[in-house]
């Protein structure tokens, strides 16, 4: 099944939502919605992966055309991924119908 849009969810440490939007906008995203959240990762995970988990999180939801989904996910991985201070994870969900969106942005050349 082919979907026109995808919903990208990016969960980052609090304060990094702007970095998420900057990375996403670079590849054609128009806007997003930021929800405050709290992480609940297990203590064991902190020792296994040698990371510290900051409980205050921000969940950024971005609705994008399917064509630019991969570019945005890669951009998020590079700029706010687990190996960056943002310690973000990002994933996408299929959207079967959407309304209220403004016209599609002009396509940016993919590097």
């Amino acid at each position, binding site marked *: 099944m082919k979907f026109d849009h995808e919903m990208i969810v990016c969960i980052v440490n609090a304060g990094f939502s702007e970095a998420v939007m900057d990375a996403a906008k670079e590849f054609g995203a128009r*806007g997003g*919605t930021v929800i405050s959240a709290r992480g609940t990762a297990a203590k064991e995970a902190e020792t296994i992966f040698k990371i510290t988990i900051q409980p205050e999180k921000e969940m950024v939801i971005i609705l994008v055309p399917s064509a630019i989904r991969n570019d945005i996910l890669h951009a998020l991985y590079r700029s706010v991924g687990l190996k960056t201070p943002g310690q973000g994870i990002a994933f996408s*969900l*299929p*959207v*079967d*119908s959407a*309304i209220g969106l403004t016209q599609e942005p002009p396509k940016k050349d993919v590097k």
Partner: protein
Amino acid sequence: MDNFPKPRVRKQRPARTVADSTAVKKLKLLVTVVNKNKAEFFTDLLESFEINMQMVTRAHGTAGSEMLHYMGLEESEKTVIFSLIREDQAAAALAALDEKFRTVRGGKGIAYTVPISGVIGAAIYQFLSNQPTHGKGDHAQ
């Protein structure tokens, strides 16, 4: 030739569709992003589409023009409504939302649906899909 009886043609019944009352209908997650002060208006509207569970959360919108960005006015307070809706009601709900987005002052927003791949518990499913009890007990489907 006229003396031959005409062959009897059986009228074909319409094929049974998903709309049959016993068929299991899928659920979708309807996400609606609107201005903060319009949350109640839209939750009330969505309730008329047989939605039994909605989750409302405060959020910030980040879409805006370059000018607003430089003036520091880019972010705006929003409400995100997560609703679980039956598949056959989704199109009507989106159409109603679209109409309100266009006509209500300050009611502009976006809405979209995401398919739900599974749910556990017959009673939970019946509650979420607003369908009366068909089977017995509380078994996973």
